[in-house]
């Protein structure tokens, strides 16, 4: 055999003889971008000087589980953010002292998000935590009540982190700008300096809760183990491999389905806001999503540029450069992380869709939005394609 043909045959044999990889090199690169191995460290939280203080995290953990921070003594953060349920509650609408208009969000990965809540109306995890504490239907108590609870139960721990606790002997039991009429009046008659002292303690409660939540890791999944093995050139163990259907689902997720447009990066969210034509819920007020959040962010005394932020203005880029185009954000909501999503129905910002099968159907049909314009186009997925997508999503369930 001539030398040239021999070399050609050997080269072809080399290519053909490779262990067939379940993913092409390009698919593997895309998969790596979605896997935990690509996760960046938690970004700094410049508006919270105690964000990475272990003492603050320890105090935050106690606050998180303490139902004493509620009007009826029965609601803690952990009431809706259950530690054994991905820190969410499996309900369409969160139930605290009353019932909210939105579904509880899972907290894992929240520390990476520049904007919090479904509509992103808070720009830090510490400021986010203050919302439910004062909501009449969540914790159902005022900021003065919460600050007094710190004085009564956690004063030493608080002072070790934040310095001397202010003199609280003249603070009313219930006073806050968002409470009942009586509570609002009690707040308004307080001297400005007292209101600022209470606001500072209230902000520090949030800062402790943020420090705690920054210690919560993202959970490993079968997808992560599989992709990391492939990335290292190893053969994944059979029970840690993705089967043909799951790989087909991954290919749909990153290809025809275009799910990866908004569910990208290792948290499988782009941290932005999208109108996907999710329906309204009868009986709930109209929800404009991000469109209504922009004014809330700008006027929030607890935002990155506010008096209780520890950041220099130059460190508040997300707030300073956020898009303020309400028209573009009409009924836009944040894509939640899809890590663990298949295992935590119901779905969407007010629990409108009850099963993962119905979610995939929604994206396949792409209905018109109740207001604004949906970004979706019909995918017309086949039965097999829908099943494959769902199978892939389950590979993102926490182990």
């Amino acid at each position, binding site marked *: 055999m001539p030398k040239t043909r021999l070399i050609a045959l050997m*080269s072809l044999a*080399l*290519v053909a003889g490779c262990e067939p990889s379940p993913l092409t090199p390009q*698919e593997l690169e895309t998969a790596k971008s979605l896997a935990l191995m690509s996760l960046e460290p938690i970004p700094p939280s410049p508006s919270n000087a105690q964000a990475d203080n272990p003492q603050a995290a320890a105090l935050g953990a106690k606050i998180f589980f303490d139902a004493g921070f509620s009007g009826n003594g029965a609601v803690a953060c952990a009431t809706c953010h259950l530690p054994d349920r991905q820190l969410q509650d499996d309900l369409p609408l969160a139930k605290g002292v009353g019932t909210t208009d939105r579904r509880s969000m899972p907290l894992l990965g929240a520390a990476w998000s520049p904007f919090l809540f479904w509509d992103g109306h808070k720009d830090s995890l510490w400021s986010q935590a203050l919302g439910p504490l004062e909501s009449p239907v969540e914790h159902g108590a005022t900021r003065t009540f919460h600050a007094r609870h710190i004085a009564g139960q956690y004063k030493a721990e608080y002072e070790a982190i934040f310095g001397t606790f202010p003199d609280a002997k003249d603070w009313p039991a219930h006073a806050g700008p968002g409470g009942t009429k009586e509570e609002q009046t009690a707040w308004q008659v307080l001297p400005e300096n007292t209101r600022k002292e209470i606001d500072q303690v209230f902000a520090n409660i949030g800062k402790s809760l943020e420090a705690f939540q920054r210690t919560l890791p993202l959970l490993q999944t079968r997808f992560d183990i599989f992709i990391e093995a492939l990335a290292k050139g190893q053969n994944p163990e059979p029970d840690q491999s993705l089967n043909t259907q799951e790989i087909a689902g991954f290919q749909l997720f990153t290809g025809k389905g275009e799910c990866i*447009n908004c569910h990208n990066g290792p948290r499988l969210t782009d941290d*932005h806001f999208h109108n996907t034509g999710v329906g309204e819920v009868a009986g709930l007020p109209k929800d404009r999503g991000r469109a209504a959040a922009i004014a809330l962010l700008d006027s929030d005394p607890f935002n990155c540029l506010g008096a209780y932020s520890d950041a220099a203005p130059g460190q508040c880029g997300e707030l300073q*450069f956020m898009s303020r185009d309400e028209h573009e954000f009409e009924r836009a909501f944040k894509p939640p992380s899809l890590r663990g999503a298949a295992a935590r129905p119901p779905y969407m910002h007010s629990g409108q869709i009850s099963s993962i099968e119905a979610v995939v159907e929604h994206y396949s049909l792409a209905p018109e939005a109740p207001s604004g314009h949906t*970004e979706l186009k019909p995918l017309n997925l086949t039965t097999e394609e829908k099943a494959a997508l769902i199978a892939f999503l389950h590979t993102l369930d926490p182990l």
Partner: protein
Amino acid sequence: MKPLRIVAALVVLLLLGFGGFVAFRMLQPLPDGLDLARSKQSAAGLFIVAVEPEDGKMQRGPLHAWIASVSNPDGTPVADATIAIDGGMPQHGHGLPTEPRATGSTAPGKYRIEGVKFNMGGWWVLKLKIEAGGKTDTAEFNLVL
């Protein structure tokens, strides 16, 4: 070229071609002949405009800064320009996720654009409106992430 090198080159081309096919399949197809130049004449030819990420890397996710360089057609820098930034994803029908702004000049004719963010992969357009010395012109750049 020796036969061995020819065959090896063919095998490499085969593999690259396959990878390229897959990459194409996984993205929305780009328009034919999309101009990806990062330096060009402005629309009416009044300026030469170039854009680059400040740290050299266009990335998905975090806020980052770009540098816009503006010069006259003869190559002299335009030092007193006012620049407005707009853009979006033509294939998705949405704008930029943030409102980037030119926040200062780093050198004559070089302007720092802060607050740039690309929240997803695909074809992005960055539009610059440049006003200097009583003249106004625009420059559009296609970016693929």
